[in-house]
């Protein structure tokens, strides 16, 4: 069925018809890959994300002073915790998360701001395959560059931390899990961006929502009564995600597995809302 050629006797003196195959998910995925590849912002965002992760993390390790302050001001989930080699390596994660999130937002919201969405949905009138393809591609691409960036930063950092008390190796408990957790978190942030962009249909709106939810919401939550704060705080998207890449588990945080599951839940919820809007409303 997938290789079927739609052809019908054409009226009049029609020349040989162009071979056309039915729209299938793998074709939509290929088409979306082409769209990702052929736009500058993809390369800018991915390169920037890679550089921010790799560079900041490496620098963090080399400028580390064993006698200095013992806490980080890194990304949520690490901030205010005792310094360790992994949190140093993930120094650039906050910035990187914004960059990959913006990348996700632009991949969907950009279609609305430029009008491309009309071409896209005319080619794929079932609509949802487009959203799934974008989520898979953005998540997949970011997973690869984030893993590369995090491991590079950690490995370069190992050289810088040589001889320091906090030095750990890749084989030590939790290290591999933290670095992979960071890559998975960033991949999910990209998918979160895809969903927000599709839901809000505006680059500015999508980026504002992304920043608010990931970076500002945890701070605003401080205004809640203490008992509420303690209960809710671990479940905020970026705090839950943070548990996945923190080297050590603590009582006020979810476990790494729970953390990434909760964050994935937020992303899935947003993606479902985006799918609903895409399917149900005019473009």
């Amino acid at each position, binding site marked *: 069925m997938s290789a079927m050629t739609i052809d019908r006797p054409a009226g009049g003196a029609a020349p040989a018809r162009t071979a056309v195959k039915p729209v299938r998910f793998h074709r939509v995925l290929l088409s979306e890959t082409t769209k990702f590849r052929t736009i500058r912002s993809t390369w800018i965002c991915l390169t920037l994300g890679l550089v921010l992760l790799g560079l900041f993390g490496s620098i963090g390790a080399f400028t580390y002073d064993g006698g200095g302050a013992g806490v980080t001001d890194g990304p949520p989930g690490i901030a205010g915790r005792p310094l360790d080699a992994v949190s140093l390596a993930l120094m650039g994660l906050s910035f990187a998360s914004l960059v990959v999130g913006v990348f996700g937002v632009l991949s969907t919201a950009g279609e609305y701001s430029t009008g491309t969405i009309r071409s896209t*949905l005319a080619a794929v009138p079932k609509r949802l395959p487009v959203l799934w393809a974008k989520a898979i591609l953005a998540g997949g691409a970011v997973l690869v560059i984030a893993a590369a960036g995090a491991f590079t930063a950690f490995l370069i950092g190992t050289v810088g931390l040589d001889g320091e008390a906090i030095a750990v190796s890749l084989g030590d408990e939790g290290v591999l899990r933290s670095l992979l957790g960071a890559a998975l978190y960033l991949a999910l942030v990209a998918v979160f961006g895809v969903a927000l962009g599709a839901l809000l249909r505006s680059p500015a709106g999508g980026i504002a929502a992304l920043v608010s939810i990931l970076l500002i919401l945890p701070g605003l939550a401080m205004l809640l009564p203490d008992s509420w704060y303690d209960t809710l705080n671990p479940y905020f998207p970026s705090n839950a995600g943070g548990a996945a890449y923190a080297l050590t588990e603590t009582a006020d945080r979810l476990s790494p597995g729970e953390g990434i599951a909760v964050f994935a839940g937020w992303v899935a919820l947003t993606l479902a809302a985006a799918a609903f809007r895409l399917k149900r409303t005019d473009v």
Partner: protein
Amino acid sequence: MIEARELTKRYGDKTVVDGLSFTVKPGEVTGFLGPNGAGKSTTMRMVLGLDAPTAGSVTVNGRSYAGHGAPLHEIGALLEAKSVHPGRSAEAHLTALAQTHGIARGRVDEVIELAGLQSVAGKRVGAFSLGMGQRLGIAAALLGDPETVMLDEPVNGLDPEGVLWIRNLLAKLAAEGRAVLLSSHLMSETAQIADHLVIIGRGRLLADTTVEAFVRETGTGAVRVASDEAGRLRALLAGPDVTVSGSNDTELLVSGLGAREIGRVALEHGVPLHELTPLGASLEEAFMDLTTDELEYRSAPADGRSAR
């Protein structure tokens, strides 16, 4: 083939398309006419399933647009608003569209050539002129070798050469047996391309007729003919619905017959012509008469008298 049945679209309490029924048949060019804001673009978006009708239905080749496995093979459309990312090249845009339908790479080059975009295919679309953007939109519409072609104001921004190109292209597509729908707000221009007319105002159908019948019924669309054998031609053209008046020995004013028929009659009888001019202005007036009451954005009378 496009069939709209009681198609209706409301935004809040504003009815943009109101119980519209019409058919776009294969093998002919249907002109979709109406003043700005008449609901042409909304209707076209509903054909493609981009907007959902509030009531009624529209089908493409017998099925709803989304019901087709390979929609780009059924209908190719150029929409009025830009629908290409300005940062992407024309070639990349067409390639991405082609890939959704497994259309071979060669076809992308084919439509690029057809639209005359070879020299700019690799350039970012953001740098395109309005005319080049229109050509790219038409290339995209033809990519899937569609049975039906639907173009929203295709001559917008085209230079005279481009307008001629569109005219010939549409005639060729119709001759190949395809259904062609072409929207415009200019009657005289459309009458030169179209066989059939669907005229709407404020979302309602005002006329569904052929160009010939419209010309006949409105008593306009006279054709000026100049020939050294005007006297002989006058006799040849005579018929029950035809009136021929002449101001001198070489010039005739014919109403009731189109330029096409007059040309054919002249050729059959070997009458040399040195002018054959449809008087489009009066056609435009008849169109204005029909739609004036339905104008969405009417200009205020300049001097307190009639707006026209």
